């Protein structure tokens, strides 16, 4: 199969592309729909909404997730909100403005037509969510309320307290539940996708492991939709859930699906710092806090050292000795500078040994003292009460009295499987939605736009484009499950599992994962260098060898085995991380969340190279012993002009 990177962007003016494209997509006769079997892997916003919508249209859908219920997909954890160009506030918002902000926020590394469509359907998402019963915040007049988020000058973020992701997911989950009840969707909880099955070059099924019985089984289908979320856990510590993985996407890659921009990772500036080496995950403190909190570090190493030694409390540090570095460096945006920029500034302060988190020093203050003095504690409680409680619950400190400590943490992955305008990967019949694809956020995602993208893909794009593919293949039906391709893939998955169990070495999967995380954070994290990345590639290779020689997977396959689950995921992270580093190494520019120290302006800002890098890097697997090949999809901007982002 040749590697086809034609994005299939429809012709015509930007604003008409989606409607005219939709009008020309092929349909499946309602009476025939149930004869088509569609597999949806993932029950988050993207997968849940896609499975529910396709089921309701009458297709025969099977949906898989690794949790014990589809309602627990990690979309549930999103706090802040979801963007939509409703212009309910009458503050000049429009589809075009949301489109432009998103393209610019992504540092001009996303595909124009996809982003425009995202902005275009954003309003329908809110309608759909409200109709399914999502209790968004309302004003006293009963109309929907909005808040502001980073990177925008309008108020277009819809929210449900600090639990927007939860409520949106419960909306999609209830729609999905209805279809499960009716019988159009069959739900398989606690099933992990281990592989993709191709028949004659088309995606025609998957292999799963039943996480209770250990049964490894093949499923045949007419098409496969992968919505398995992001791979932030390659860094070991992130704001992702424990089970988030790259396995499903990586297996698709190994079968020939292009992997786009794997190095584009979002590091969120305001997370609770690491407390020691017993830590298993990092917790996000919403971006909204930076509306009233001021970020600072002591202005000298001596002061920071005395804080670390317990001789000084933050309150003892005088105004003159505080460095409000965001306000100093970015006077016009101040504490609301975008995520990538704020994260790097925090790192800079800590690299300068002015960090103050106990133990490592890796942390700076987010201080509400001035806001509390100005507005009163009760006002601050009203605005951020649940976040302050969460902070206190984790750290045992009261942020009304002492400043919060924060540090950047891995949060989101903009990279993902390459898809064309129809969200189809380079493998025909394999569609990818949500965080698992690469499509809309370029090199940096704006706050409140991942929920929007997940639901746009799930409710509006995939239900139109998947049937188009099905109509093109005709009613031949899925290949018979007796097809040798299924048996072979099953055998391979069983062998791999058996191999993991048989090594019986001395290193736990968790310990090896932690080591990988350290390499990635140090060398492929907030600041990347040629030297660091080159070294990382070697270190990852060594670690991979160590893994396959020395991993210890206790227990058996035929039972719940968390060690085996982790080992399988870590094994894939150990291969995938190398591609991330290669991608970061070859992208000789800084853009969005990708900061190459060699490519910065005199005052330390990211320096983009539009002449050589205004493209999507797409990686093609070449076999286990051969390095992958990097292809390019050139980004053609018809509507917007490339400009330098400045927040000074």
């Amino acid at each position, binding site marked *: 199969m040749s590697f086809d990177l034609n994005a299939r962007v429809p012709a015509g003016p930007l604003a008409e592309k989606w409607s005219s494209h939709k009008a020309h997509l092929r349909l499946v006769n309602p009476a025939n729909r149930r004869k088509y079997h569609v597999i949806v892997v993932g029950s988050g916003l993207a997968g849940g909404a896609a499975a529910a919508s396709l089921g309701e249209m009458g297709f025969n859908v099977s949906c898989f997730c690794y949790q014990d219920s589809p309602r627990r997909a990690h979309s549930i954890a999103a706090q802040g909100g979801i963007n939509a160009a409703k212009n309910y506030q009458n503050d000049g918002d429009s589809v075009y403005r949301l489109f432009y902000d998103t393209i610019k926020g992504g540092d001009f590394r996303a595909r124009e037509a996809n982003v425009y469509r995202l902005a275009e359907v954003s309003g329908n998402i809110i309608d759909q969510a409200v109709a399914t*019963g999502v209790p968004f915040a309302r004003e006293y007049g009963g109309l*929907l309320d909005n808040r502001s988020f980073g990177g925008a000058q309008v108020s277009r973020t819809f929210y449900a307290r600090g*639990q927007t992701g939860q409520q949106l997911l419960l909306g999609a989950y209830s729609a999905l539940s209805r279809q499960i009840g009716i019988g159009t969707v069959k*739900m398989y909880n606690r099933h992990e996708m281990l592989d993709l099955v191709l028949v004659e070059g088309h995606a025609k099924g998957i292999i799963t492991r039943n996480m209770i019985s250990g049964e490894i089984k093949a499923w045949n289908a007419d098409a496969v939709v992968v919505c398995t979320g992001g791979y932030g856990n390659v860094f070991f510590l992130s704001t992702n859930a424990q089970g988030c993985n790259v396995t499903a996407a990586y297996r698709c890659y190994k079968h020939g699906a292009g992997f786009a921009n794997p190095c584009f990772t979002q590091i969120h500036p305001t997370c609770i710092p690491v*407390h020691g080496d017993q830590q*298993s995950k990092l917790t996000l403190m919403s971006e909204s806090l930076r509306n009233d909190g001021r970020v600072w570090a002591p202005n000298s190493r001596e002061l920071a050292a005395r804080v670390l030694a317990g001789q000084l409390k933050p309150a003892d540090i005088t105004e003159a000795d505080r460095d409000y570095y965001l306000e100093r460096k970015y006077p016009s945006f101040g504490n609301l500078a975008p995520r990538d920029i704020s994260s790097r500034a925090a790192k800079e302060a800590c690299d300068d040994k002015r960090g103050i988190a106990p133990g490592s020093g890796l942390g700076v203050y987010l201080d509400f003292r001035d806001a509390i003095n100005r507005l009163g504690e009760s006002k601050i409680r009203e605005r951020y009460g649940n976040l302050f409680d969460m902070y206190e*619950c*984790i750290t045992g400190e009261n942020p009304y009295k002492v400043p919060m400590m924060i540090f950047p943490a891995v949060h989101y992955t903009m990279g993902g499987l390459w898809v064309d305008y129809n969200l189809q990967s380079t493998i025909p019949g394999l569609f990818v939605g949500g965080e698992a694809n690469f499509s809309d956020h370029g090199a940096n995602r704006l706050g409140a736009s991942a929920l929007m993208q997940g639901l746009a893909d799930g409710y509006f794009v995939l239900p139109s484009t998947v049937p188009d593919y099905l109509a093109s293949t005709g009613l031949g039906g899925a290949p018979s499950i007796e097809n040798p391709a299924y048996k072979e893939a099953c055998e391979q998955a069983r062998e791999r599992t058996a191999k993991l169990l048989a090594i019986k070495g001395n290193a736990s999967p968790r310990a090896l994962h932690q080591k990988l995380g350290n390499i990635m954070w140090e060398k492929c994290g907030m600041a990347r260098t040629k030297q660091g990345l080159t070294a990382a590639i070697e270190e990852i290779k060594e670690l991979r060898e160590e893994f396959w020689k020395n991993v210890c997977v*206790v227990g058996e396959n035929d039972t719940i085995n968390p060690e085996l689950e982790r080992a399988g995921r870590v094994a894939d992270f150990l291969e995938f991380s190398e591609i991330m580093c290669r991608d970061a190494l070859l992208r000789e520019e800084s853009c969005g969340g990708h900061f190459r120290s060699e490519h910065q302006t005199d005052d330390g800002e990211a320096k983009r190279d539009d002449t050589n890098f205004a493209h999507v890097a797409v990686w093609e697997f070449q076999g286990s012993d051969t390095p992958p090949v990097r292809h390019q999809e050139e980004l053609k901007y018809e509507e917007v002009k490339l400009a330098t982002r400045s927040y000074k």
Partner: protein
Amino acid sequence: MSNETNAHDQTLNLTIRVWRQPTRLAKGSFKEYKVSNISTGSSFLEMLDILNEQLVAQKEEPIAFDHDCREGICGMCSMTINGVPHGPLQGVTTCQVHMRHFKDGETITIEPWRARPFPVIKDIVVDRTPLDSITQAGGFISIRTGSAIDANIIPIPKPVADRAMDAAECIGCGACVAACPNAAAMLFVGSKVAHFNSLPQGKAEKEQRTLAMVKVMDEAGFGSCTNYGECQAVCPKGNTLDFIAQLNRDYAVAKIKRFFQSTGKKRAGA
């Protein structure tokens, strides 16, 4: 009010008494393990991670337990700690409990949710799919994708929206069932019913929804509510008996309406 000192420095040595049960049908029992040097800043589940690493190093099977988000929102974690579902603190999930709330030298007892409709699958992991079945029966508003009206056409008074949101905060963890001497799922069902039935969008299916969810709840073997109130005491989201009262009201009204309902037509065969 919390202390202002930094809690990161101390460490604990503990005895963990935990339920081990290899399979659904096997007979389980408590086993005791020692863990040491647990930082008071660690979470309860991180303490278990450390214990599990210790077991793995001895080539012993680690303790299986459910967890995912580790920030109190997915509803996956589910442990009874010292006799209380989700442990000693009010209004938090197991994964939000931190070790600073325990004493050096303490013995901590960990069990799975104990409730007839939630069979143990392994160690601390139970099967909570009956909660999904209840939702599948009626926990939704029927609306086709793409056919929704504009979101601002129906204004919803803020107190109504707030009440729906309060109810909708339920994370489906099942702690209420585990805490109830009758293994009733009334707080879970009441929360869902209160969420949808309060909203104008949910009114059309109000009766149907309530009856269908209660029917499946009964069939799944959940007990009935006799007002112990244990459920609200352990609910990590602070949902209260108020939602059960609404469920009872809506159920009674739905029953009566059903009884008197007539299509106005002669019934075939009647």
